[in-house]
């Protein structure tokens, strides 16, 4: 009980589900525990769809948990709690308000009087390095400056807890780095009027650079897979061997759970026909296979190295790796990506042969592809409406995921020339697209 009171945020056994297309519930967060105390920066690290943003929104009072308990300073969170402010990935600035007006907005809502409002807003603007921009409108600013406004707007209300939802992911590499170090400097100097920070990220290096504690989330449903303490002192150096070691171990941890999936069992979400597919362009997949097959990797690459060479975020490289793994062209394990025999063969084939191999793997390893092909073969008309498959997918996943899966199916199926798809009438068919007279 004592612990609960001293904790800023206390999350116990929180679950959250959203309605699926079929009307049932889809679990996105399962039994999450989390405590945030004063004076720490906590990171929630995970893939997209791991429910980390949902957890952040539960703490922000924007989403309510389906079950479990979420408290802020011992009080159950109903609606946005006092003393919690948020920084958004998209900045969420009001384009019709100037920098100063944007910063003052939160204070106005609290009913702070005009003079104090102005003083505090100017102080926050000054702190975050925005002086001179007070009367500018957001659209006149660069991305980095806009996010500074986002920070100033959150800091001006002097929150105990600052929530950050992937605050640097919409910025270019250089700008993001400047903003990160500025923020950490202010934090270390104790000049930020806040007690703790909770940030959501999918960037492993960012988490290691900034956080004292990292919670690694696994997907489907979102769960805390591991909690990692970062004991490195600030300012942290990305090239420091300890830093690299930590990054590598987190990569390994994040790929660990992505072992090849057990043979498809009907009815279990995440496998069989109900497997959610995330779109990856066949061009990018071929490119990745070629890169992996060539020097210096020769079929075996360390993920952080590969990610930095291709300038991809951890999230993106993992996503591509998983797609290749699903198609049995590569294998993910312990933070490494290795080509399979089929993958190596693919790298050396001509375009048409590649398509045939791709088609073969699609039908064999992606159950929904096999299903569509079977249905088209069986029907006398050799056509089937997309709705037929969408309905089936929605038994297992949300409407958005069903859409994404269908999009992937269409794009891969077209590349492999497994079937044709008419977007206008939303029908799959076996007709040869070349057969239509021009």
């Amino acid at each position, binding site marked *: 009980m004592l612990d609960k009171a001293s904790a800023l945020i206390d999350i116990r056994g929180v679950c959250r589900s959203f309605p699926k297309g079929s009307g049932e519930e889809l679990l996105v967060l399962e039994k999450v525990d989390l405590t945030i105390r004063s004076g720490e920066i906590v990171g929630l690290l995970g893939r997209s769809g791991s429910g980390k943003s949902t957890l952040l*929104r539960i703490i*922000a*009072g*924007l*989403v*309510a*948990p*389906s079950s479990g308990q979420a408290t802020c300073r011992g009080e159950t969170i*109903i*609606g*946005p709690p*006092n003393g*919690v*402010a*948020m920084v*958004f*990935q*998209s*900045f*969420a600035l*009001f*384009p*019709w*308000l100037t920098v100063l007006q944007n910063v003052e*907005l*939160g204070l*106005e*809502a*609290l*009913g702070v009087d005009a003079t104090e409002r102005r003083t505090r807003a100017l102080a926050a603007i000054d702190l975050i390095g925005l002086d001179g921009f007070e009367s500018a*409108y*957001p*659209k*006149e600013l660069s991305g980095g400056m*806009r996010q500074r406004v986002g920070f100033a*707007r959150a800091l001006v*209300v002097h929150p105990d807890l600052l929530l950050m939802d992937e605050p640097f992911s919409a910025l270019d590499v250089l700008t993001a780095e400047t903003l990160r170090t500025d923020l950490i400097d202010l934090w270390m100097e104790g000049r930020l009027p806040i007690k703790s920070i909770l940030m959501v990220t999918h960037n492993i290096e960012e988490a290691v650079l900034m956080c004292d504690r990292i919670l690694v989330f696994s997907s489907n449903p979102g769960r805390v897979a591991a909690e990692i303490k970062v004991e490195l002192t600030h300012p942290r150096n990305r090239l420091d061997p300890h830093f690299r070691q930590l990054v590598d171990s987190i990569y390994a941890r994040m790929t660990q759970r992505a072992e090849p999936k057990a043979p498809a069992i009907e009815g279990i979400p995440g496998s069989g026909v109900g497997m959610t597919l995330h779109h990856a362009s066949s061009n990018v997949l071929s490119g990745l296979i070629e890169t992996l097959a060539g020097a210096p990797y020769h079929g075996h690459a360390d993920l952080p190295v590969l990610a930095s060479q291709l300038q991809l975020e951890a999230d993106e490289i993992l996503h591509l790796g998983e797609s290749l793994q699903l198609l049995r062209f590569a294998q993910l394990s312990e933070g490494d990506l290795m080509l399979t025999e089929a993958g190596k063969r693919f790298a050396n084939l001509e375009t048409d042969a590649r398509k045939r191999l791709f088609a073969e793997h699609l039908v064999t390893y992606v159950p929904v592809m096999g299903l569509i092909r079977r249905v088209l073969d069986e029907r006398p008309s050799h056509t089937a409406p997309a709705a037929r498959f969408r309905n089936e997918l929605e038994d297992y996943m949300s409407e958005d995921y069903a859409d994404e899966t269908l999009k992937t199916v269409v794009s891969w199926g077209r590349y492999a020339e497994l079937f044709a798809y008419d977007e*206008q009438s939303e029908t799959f068919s076996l007709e040869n697209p070349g057969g239509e007279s021009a």
Partner: protein
Amino acid sequence: MKPRYIRTAAIGRALRPNVWDVVALILVIGAMVLIVYGGEQTTAPLSELERTPVSLDPANLPLYALRTVLRMLLAIVCSTVFTFIYAAIAAKSRRAEMVMIPVLDILQSVPILGFLTFTVVFFMNLFPSQVLGAELASVFAIFTSQAWNMTFSMYQSMRNVPKDLEEATQSFHLSGWQRFWRLDVPFAMPGLIWNAMMSMSGGWFFVVASEAITVGNTTVTLPGIGSYVALGIQQQDLPAIFYAILAMLLVIIAYDQLLFRPIVAWADKFRFEQTASGEAPASWVLDLFRRTRALRALTLPFSAINRAISNLRVPLPELRPATKAKGRPSRLIDGVWIALILAGTAYAAWLSYRYLSASLGMPDVLIVIRDGLITLLRVAVLITLATLIWVPVGVWIGLRPKLAERIQPLAQFLAAFPANLAFPVFVVAIVSFRLNPNVWLSPLMILGTQWYILFNVIAGASAFPTDLREAASSLHLGGWRWWFKVIIPGIFPYYVTGAITASGGSWNASIVAEVASWGDTHLKATGLGAYIASATEAGDFPRVVLGIATMCILVTLFNRLVWRPLYAFGERRLRLG
């Protein structure tokens, strides 16, 4: 400290008026005087109208124009208030939305001049023997021509507020009232202003039509440009008609320059985009006001009031709670609500049936349907003709930027000009050449609305990407192939937008276009518009209701079966970029 020093100096400079202050001050005072003067006239008793009837002396025209403009202004204020309330309720309450949005959709297709028939009687009874009643009826007619699409635009904006801004307002504890003024209204502003502008264009037509109207025994002649023209028609005074057209031209130009341009330029900051756009709309009036120092100071109290209003602690019921764990709406209440709506609908249907069947029989229905189909045919033929003429012209102009820059304002202006003022000129021609009214009255229906097609096509052709044009010419696409594979798909979404407006406007115009007179000569074409017009004049309410209901059904069907699919197709397949 340095900043404070700079600030006091700035204030010191601000107090000294400059030349622009004088100009702007005169404009402001002039506007106030005109509003007060015009307003005084409306409280006069109705007998005043009879004592000083409308005269054809051109010296009176400025005053008449002023009265017309004031009606317009009042209507736009009413429309805006209505929009805020109606759209807010529809957007925030799911159950209200179920009824309010379809109602709005139908109201949009009710012919506006049809409303006039009922409201004249209603308002005249509300303020017996006062000019105010007639004025209100006129204002209400303009209101009905403006409010619906403004409300739709506001509602759509409110339902599409970006999620991150919504979360930001919640996260920073803004109350529902604050959120409305700080997020919903500014976000809806650009769409709202654009729609208000389009409404205004249409509104001139109705303000003119509503100033001189006869419903059964009630004849209203409000001083204004419309009644001036009506009198000119009665007295067969062609020069008077030209004076009125000239006055209207000046009024619309002034309205555009002094009111709408500045508002559009000012509202540019509400456009929801994170990067600065190519070119911002400019207005010399706005620049004038921004350059004046003392006048800018005058606006400070307004922004202070605005701020104070938005920060008021007004408790609003939380209608769409965002953070409910099990936010499943209660099925039972939904059921009761739907049952209530159905019961209400059934009662209304029974009431209408009883009212209409008392005096009308099956033959009447058949006549109305026949007339309706004739008018439908007219609209279809006219839109086709206008398309064949204005699409090539619009493309030709739109692909020449210099020319488009000059023609575009003219086309927009012509769309705003109330074509009914020019009707007499055509009627004179029909009378003197003894032409068949069934054929030759028809073009009047599209006289004012064809310009919507023109200026939308110009806009589409101007926006057509240069690289696509270059690709087409490098592939040697020419002739028919160029038209059907390149430019027509490129401008299609724009064309459909223009054609929808034009077709809606033509239906409305049919009520005044299918019947025309010049002195004692009365021309009448067969059609639903003429049917409604005659019934109105005779004060035959059951027939008016029947005619309007039929037109409403035809317009709705036409929109749903033709325009909406075309629009959806254009948006999905042919929208560039």
